[in-house]
């Protein structure tokens, strides 16, 4: 390989030697150290061989000795190629220009591909990429993909991650948008009592508490108000500490939020007349099968006898849809009667009534029942002590300047009551 490359760089000729003494010619060339290679004998008096350009001159004295003639068949190598191109300088210049242009253009970004970018963010991301220098026609060597990725993530709030890769003239920008949790729109609201209850726990997160733990509330009463009014003493601690006067009172409408737990009492009532019998389902039995073609019944087959204490139900099954054959299977459920305690049944009815009044997070803490018997009639009354959240959000429309007006009115009345009162001043 190296020899071939070296021969190509220096240039060589493929010669055709004709004559009777070809072996003598080969021996003489080897003795004179004229290197020949790829020697092929074509005919008895013809052979071809490759020879360096410099060695060709030394062949002439040998040819006379062996009676051969030499003819150059082909000239191969870089010197010959250059000599050939010397006459075609425009072609060389064009090729060189093409090579330079290809090298220059290959070092630039011609395509920008965004992967994983939602439609509404595409413009923003492209704008940020342009600001970071990644535009069509930018030099790839002057761009740092990590730096660009960091920059677009830092400047686009909607993006969680970005990665930039260069593949030749293509800049592949992968972005992952942030998935934000859906926050419901929360307007101002109060927390009102869902029922008459005693407040056990009250922890206010936002808003202003209107009741204290241990107090009784009525249904609809505001427990935590969404309107928080700040007086001059409350709004700014500096006023309280330094006695500085607060110029503007403030009312804020907030979405009241609190942990409110209350205790409440519910009543349940149940009554039962006479002996109660419960039917217990024992087992299912197939009674009959009916075969239909469309609406026409083809055949009916009884499987088991229908008993007295049996409820009948039918189930349809389509077996052969293309033909329209429909099989209706009739099932029967064997039932058994069981005598029940009337007091127990009445108790269950009363308890069920209480359960219906309870909310999902409300629990029964304590039950007390009273039983009344009048002949065969049994009455049961249950009093249940329950615990659970007793507040519900009640939105309201904030009125502008409502709080301020109220505050001004209060302030005015105070001024009237004490005309000599002075505004608070810092001590000293």
């Amino acid at each position, binding site marked *: 390989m190296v020899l071939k490359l070296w021969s190509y760089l220096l240039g060589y000729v493929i010669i055709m030697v004709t004559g009777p003494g*070809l*072996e003598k010619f080969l021996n003489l060339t*080897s003795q004179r150290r004229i290197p*020949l290679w790829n*020697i092929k004998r074509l005919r008895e008096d013809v052979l071809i061989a490759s020879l360096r350009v410099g060695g060709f001159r030394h062949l002439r004295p040998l040819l006379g000795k062996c009676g051969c003639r030499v003819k150059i068949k082909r000239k191969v190598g870089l010197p010959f190629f250059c000599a050939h191109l010397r006459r075609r300088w425009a072609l060389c210049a064009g090729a060189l220009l093409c090579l330079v242009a290809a090298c220059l253009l290959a070092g630039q970004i011609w395509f920008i591909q965004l992967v994983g970018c939602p439609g509404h963010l595409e413009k923003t991301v492209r704008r940020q990429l342009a600001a970071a220098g990644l535009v069509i026609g930018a030099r790839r060597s002057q761009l740092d993909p990590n730096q660009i990725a960091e920059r677009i993530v830092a400047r686009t709030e909607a993006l969680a991650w970005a990665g930039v890769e260069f593949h030749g003239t293509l800049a592949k920008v992968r972005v992952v948008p942030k998935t934000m949790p859906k926050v419901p729109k929360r307007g101002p609201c109060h927390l009102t009592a869902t029922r008459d209850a005693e407040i056990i726990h009250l922890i206010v997160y936002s808003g202003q508490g209107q009741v204290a733990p241990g107090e009784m509330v009525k249904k609809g009463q505001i427990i935590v108000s969404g309107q928080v009014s700040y007086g001059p003493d409350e709004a700014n601690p500096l006023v309280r500490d330094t006695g500085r006067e607060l110029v503007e009172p403030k009312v804020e409408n907030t979405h009241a939020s609190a942990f409110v737990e209350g205790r409440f009492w519910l009543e349940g009532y149940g009554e039962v007349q006479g002996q109660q019998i419960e039917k217990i389902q024992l087992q299912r039995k197939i009674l009959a099968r009916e075969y239909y073609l469309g609406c026409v019944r083809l055949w009916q087959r009884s499987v088991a006898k229908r008993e007295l204490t049996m409820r009948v139900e039918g189930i349809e099954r389509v077996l052969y849809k293309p033909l329209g054959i429909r099989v209706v299977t009739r099932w029967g459920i064997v039932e058994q009667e069981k005598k029940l305690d009337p007091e127990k049944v009445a108790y269950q009815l009363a308890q069920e009534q209480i359960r219906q009044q309870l909310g999902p997070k409300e629990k029964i803490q304590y039950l007390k029942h009273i039983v009344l018997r009048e002949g065969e009639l049994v009455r049961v009354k249950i009093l249940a002590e329950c615990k659970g959240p007793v507040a519900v959000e009640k939105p309201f429309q904030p009125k502008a300047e409502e709080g301020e007006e109220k505050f001004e009115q209060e302030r005015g009345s105070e001024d009237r009551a004490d005309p000599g009162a002075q505004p608070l001043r810092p001590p000293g």
Partner: protein
Amino acid sequence: MKAPGKKVGKALVELLELPRDIVFDLPRIMLSGNNQLIMENHKGIIEYGPDKIRINTRLGEVVVHGSGLVIVTILPEEITICGRISAVSFGDWGVGKSWS
């Protein structure tokens, strides 16, 4: 009868364990598979054809039989032959000429 110089030389080579091909200019043949043959210390080509090449050596001639034989390189000390080599024979190697 061997010449006295050769006898001394042979004894010296055996005594000093010198390579014979270098000391006595013996032909050295290297055959790679049946595709390439390299011969060193040759004395020229006697006959060259695509099926048969006869190479002269100091001890006699070496005949390479095969098909599509091509002399890849020919130098004063070395000759490389490529092609499908079927046989290598030694013709006219007299007893007195051998160094076995």
